Every structure is written in C-alpha cells, then in structure tokens.
C-alpha cells in the first residue's frame, strides 16, 4: 500500500462572472506517493497542480474521487480524524510572507502546533523540540525567535514553515511552489534543505511550474496539463526521454543559460501544440499555452490561424461554447458536472518500466 493514493480525483470550479459555467481544474487524476519519496508535480498555471495540493491538505474538497492516506479516505475526515491527519501531512505554500499573520511574531506558528497537538509538553520540552526542528532546516533559533515575519528573509520564512511541519510526525510534506518567490541566490539552499529532509525519510510532493527545479529534486515526476496527467514516471526517464509532446514542448521552451531557443525547432513544437488542440473536449486551457503558437513569423502564423480554435480571435471559449460539445448553455450545472466528470482522461500507457504517457489524439 502506498502512503498516499490519489484516486481519480476531479475538481470542478464554477467559472464565469455569475458562476454560470464550470471549469474542470482536475479530471480523474490518479497517482501514488510512496514513503520517503519526492514526487514533483509539474504544470503550468491553470493545470490544477495547486488545487491538487489543496485537496490533499483538505483545504479544498474534491468534486469526485478520493485521496487515501495509509488506506484511510481523507476526503471524508472530520474533527478528530482530520486533526490527526494533520499530524502526518503538512503543507508549505508559495508566498512565504502571506503564510504568516503579520500581526504575530514568528513563534506563533510553532505555538499553534504546541497548543493543538502537544498540549501536554512543557515549555522546556517544547523548546527543545523546536530547537531540533530548526536545526533540521539549518536555522539558528536566535535568528527567528521573537521576531516579526517581515524581519526574516523569504528563505528564512520558508524554512521556519518547514520546521513547523517537522514538529509534527510529518510523513508527507506538500511543498507548493515554495521557492518561486524567493530570490535566485537563496532558492537552491531551500531546495537542498528539502533534499536533506528526504534523506531523513520525509515524503515530499514538490509542486512547481519550473521544470529544472522538479528535475533537480525529485525521484518521480508527474506532468499535469489542463487537469489531467500528460506524463509521469521516474524523473530521469521523464526528463531524459520525454515521450509526450507537451513535455517535449515544455522542455524546449525552458530558457536555458547555455542553449539558445533558436537552436530548438519551434516548428516541431508548434506541430505538437496544434495536435493537442484537436480534441474538442480539451477543457478550457490556460491561455498561456496559446501564445506559444502565436509565433511571429507570418507564414507560421497563417498556418496557425487555420487550425486555431476560435478563442484566439476573441474571448476565450468557455467549455460550454466549444463546438461539437454535446451540451449547450441551458444545461443545468449538476448535469454538466456529471458529463464533465464522466469524460475519461486520456489513457496512460506504460512506455517503459516506471514511465507512463498519456495517449494523445
């Protein structure tokens, strides 16, 4: 049994100004996380990666599917059980500053854990625990105690939050873009610290949009696109031998210091992109993907224009506007939701051992 099993998790959001539409943030996503494993969940904005993180942390309920932690379905947990769950699964978020209530001193994040989970521990015992947790994240207690959050650097803030999680008997840490707001010079230290924790047996779900970071740190990689898994597997396989065109195009778009974009064939990238657009059911994607198609050379553009969905010419199409969709505007949300959820995601095929790719087209 895996430590964490994500089983056909779907999430629908209401969209549109007056909540008339529905958008599928996740569609039947399934994968597991083993004990002590670092899994990176990579996706662009709108891919549903943060939503999945929040579902695992029980901050957002899934629309369908379930998440099991050591066999127990966490989506049904309440009260005591949920409280206990948080003993083992914790999270750190993207914006370190926003993670602290600016009115309180940094110590409060530790105090809350003390009150809620270890009320029986005396002050001294607790201080000793906090000390060793801080040590694990290579922080000096004197640097953080009795300070307000704004007096710490972003890197320190994130370390404190990781230390807070370590105070519990944490087995899985959801790290949601935890270094994307840090300065380049301090990022890698936080990454290295996570690696150190992994060596102590901590499982980590490392959520990021940055492929190089995912590659740097993880054992396994899940590439999420528009709420479905495009490719997943052992990190060296996914990055060394990407099989899904989306993964390929992402890798090619990553700005690199020593390899110019020009040396990467944009046409190939474009073709892959357009192929992906074909199925009418592709839920409304992040607009972002779309402009990789709008490369500037007129010839290419003309080509792109013929095949582009209408959205590029005007407002983005909502799921409901897509031509050929079996439903139109008048359908009530519950039915629409059912339809959306019943659409199976692309099938995952194991192309080599430990490497799964979604079947395209």
């Amino acid at each position, binding site marked *: 049994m895996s430590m964490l099993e994500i089983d056909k998790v779907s999430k629908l959001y209401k969209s549109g*100004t007056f909540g008339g539409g529905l958008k599928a943030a996740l569609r039947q996503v399934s994968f597991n996380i083993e004990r002590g494993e670092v899994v990176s969940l990579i996706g662009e904005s709108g891919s549903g990666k943060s939503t999945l993180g*929040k579902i695992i*942390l029980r*901050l957002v309920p899934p629309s369908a599917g379930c998440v099991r932690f050591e066999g127990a379905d966490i989506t049904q947990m309440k009260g005591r059980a949920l*409280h206990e769950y*948080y003993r083992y699964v*914790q*999270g750190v*978020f*993207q*914006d*370190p*500053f*926003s*993670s*602290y*209530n*600016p*009115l*309180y001193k940094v110590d409060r*994040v530790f105090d*809350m*854990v003390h009150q*809620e*989970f270890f009320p029986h521990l005396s002050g001294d015992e607790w201080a000793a625990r906090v000390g060793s947790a801080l040590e694990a994240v290579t922080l000096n207690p004197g640097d953080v105690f009795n300070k*307000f*959050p*704004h*007096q*710490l*650097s*972003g890197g320190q*803030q994130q370390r404190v*939050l990781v230390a807070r999680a370590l105070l519990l008997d944490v087995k899985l840490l959801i790290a949601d873009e935890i270094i*994307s*707001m*840090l*300065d380049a010079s301090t990022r890698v230290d936080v990454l290295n610290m996570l690696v150190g924790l992994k060596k102590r047996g901590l499982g980590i779900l490392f959520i990021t949009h940055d492929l190089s970071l995912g590659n740097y740190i993880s054992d396994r990689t899940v590439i999420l696109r528009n709420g479905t898994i495009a490719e997943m597997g052992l990190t060296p396989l996914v990055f060394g031998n990407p099989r899904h065109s989306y993964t390929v195009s992402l890798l090619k778009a990553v700005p690199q210091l020593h390899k110019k974009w020009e040396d990467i064939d944009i046409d190939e990238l474009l073709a892959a992109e357009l192929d992906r657009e074909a199925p009418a059911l592709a839920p409304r994607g992040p607009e972002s993907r779309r402009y990789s198609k709008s490369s500037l050379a007129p010839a290419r553009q003309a080509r792109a224009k013929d095949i582009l969905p209408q959205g590029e010419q005007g407002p983005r199409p909502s799921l409901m506007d897509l031509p050929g969709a079996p439903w139109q505007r008048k359908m009530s949300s519950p039915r629409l939701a059912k339809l959306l959820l019943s659409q199976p995601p692309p099938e995952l095929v194991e192309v080599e051992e430990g490497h799964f790719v979604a079947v395209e087209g």
Partner: protein
Amino acid sequence: MSANPGPARAAGSSTPAPVATGSPGEELDELPSAAPAPQGPGERLEKGALAGAQAAPVAPTPTLAAGAPAVRLGRQRWEFLHYALRNRKLVFGFSVELVFVLAAIFGPLAAPYSSAGDSSSAGVPLKDQCAAFFCASGMTTHPSAHHLLGMTYFGGDVLSIMLYSLRETYLVGFLGALFAGIIGLALGFTAGWRGGWLDDILQLFTNVVITMPALVLLIVIGAYVKIHSPLFEGIFIGATSWPWVARAVRAQTFTLRERDFVDLARLSGKGGVSIVLKDIAPNMASYLFLVFILLFSSSMLLSVSYDFLGLGPTNVVSLGDMMNSAMLWSALNLKAWWWFIPPGAAMALIVFGLLISNIGLDEVFNPKLRES
C-alpha cells in the same frame, strides 16, 4: 486587506507586503509574482457596494474601505503612535471629542442651573417640563452673562439642558454603534467565512434590510410602542444600521480567508471560530476601529432625528429633544435661535470631530496616505 475604493488598493496590490527578502529595501521594487489586482465585475460590484455603504451612514472614507492598512497596526505600534501624534487632523478630532466627552461626563455637575434640590436625578428631567428643574422665569431670553446660551420658552437655561443632553446622545450613539457593530460583525464574519448557501441567505437578508428606510420603519413601530429608554433606541438604531458593516466585513473576510496564513492555521488544527477571531479579525482591527467611529457618528445623527420627530425615549432629554421642543414651541417665529442652533451645532461639531479624526486615523493606518 481588501478591495475597495481608496488610495490604498485592494487585494493584489494593496498590502505593501514585502515578499521576498523582508529588508527595508523590499518596498521599492519588483515583486516578481505579485498577481495583478483582480478586475472582475464581481470585485467591482462589491467595491461599489462598499463605497455606497460608506456613503450611506456618514462619511464615505473609501480609503479605509479599501481596507489597506490593518497590517501595520501590530507591526509597528510605536510608529503608529508616532504618526498619530503628528497628525493634525487626528489631534484636532480627538481634542474636540475630548472636550465634549468631558462636558458630557462632568457637565451636569457644573451646569450653572442644575436643579439644586434634585441633584441625584439631575440627568433625567422630563422633557417638556425640564425647564422646571433649571429655573423658572418665564420667557425665552437672549444669551447673556447669566445665561450663556440664553433661555428656553420655559425659562430653562439652554446651556444646562445641553450639558445634560450630551450624555444621552453619546449613550445612544454608543449603544447603537455597539449593537450595529455586533450584528454586522457576526453576520459579516459568518457569511465571509462559511460562504456557500449560508452566505447567500445572509446576503439576501442584508440586502433586504439595506433597502428599509430606518426612520420610516421607526415611525411605524413608534406608532404602536413608545421607546422608553435610550437602551431601546440604541438597539433599534443598531438593528437598522448594520447592513453596510456586514457587507464590508464579509468582503474583507473573503479576501483575508484566501491568505495562506489562514490555511496554515487550519493545518495547525485550529477551528473556524478561533481562526476568525485570532487570525482574521485582528487583521481588520484598524479597519474595524474606523467602522466603529463611523457607526458611532451615524448612530448619534440618527438618534437626533428620532428624538427630533418625538420618537425617542420619553423620559430623558437629548439634543434632538431640544430641537423638537424648540420647533414645537415656535422658536422659529420667536426668533429664538439660541434654543436650537447650539444643540445642533454641538452635535455637528461632535460628529465633525469624529469624521476628521477618522480621516486622520486612516492616514495613520495607511502608510500610502501618510506620504502626501
């Protein structure tokens, strides 16, 4: 904090939250992933609602509805004090308030014509015969050395009556603000925190109450039951003036709820009530303080109107009552301006002082305004 009009901006950009480094330098520069402030119509509507709410009771100080500041309060208390003492508006407003509050507290003791024989009940003279407590000469008189603000038709000393009235007006204002604040906070927090159908229902309720003209409603109710005490008047005022508070608090809660520290508190096993009280509410503290000031002013103004129309408590005298009897006993025709101008002016000055200190506080809370 959240999204509303005012130099301090909403959601995305308002909080000058240092993101990456936390060094003093951070405020000047790029916050790489700072999301652009949302521009959806939803936000707009909410903003409008708030602005209107602001406009409604007394002073629309949209800056505070912009809800920027709170954060600063806890962060640099000394800094807050530093700017507070240097803010002329704040100092002016608070001085005015201090004078009137002192007058309300000690005034009756010092009133030149307080009833000598009945000092224990000096604060509650019956209103139409109140004159009897003070003096008994006969006709309205101009202000003079003996009667600084003149005398009423019944020979009451205007200054003395006013000093007694201040207490009642303050009391009703305070009670009204208190009740409106309690209702508004409770509903606003509940709706904002829980969301979903409960939010829908509470919003519907809020929207319904907001359309009710309070004064007219009170006339209807007053036709059947007389308001006998300042407490009742305060409750009534509170019961009709909370909706904009509820809306504003709801909107603020909505934005604060999205903050990561709220999620972190949940991950720490905290319950909803505790999170609202310990994490969300304190972050609105400065805003709530300003809200209370606005409520206080609007409650006092409302109570003056009620009392003026004879809908107020029957057994105490208030500033509104003074104007009421002035009108009833044709002070206009008698050209006895001293009968109604001073009480109204006192009221106006009190509220003016509150509004000005409100702006001052806003400037102190909100660093962006401080600059200019």
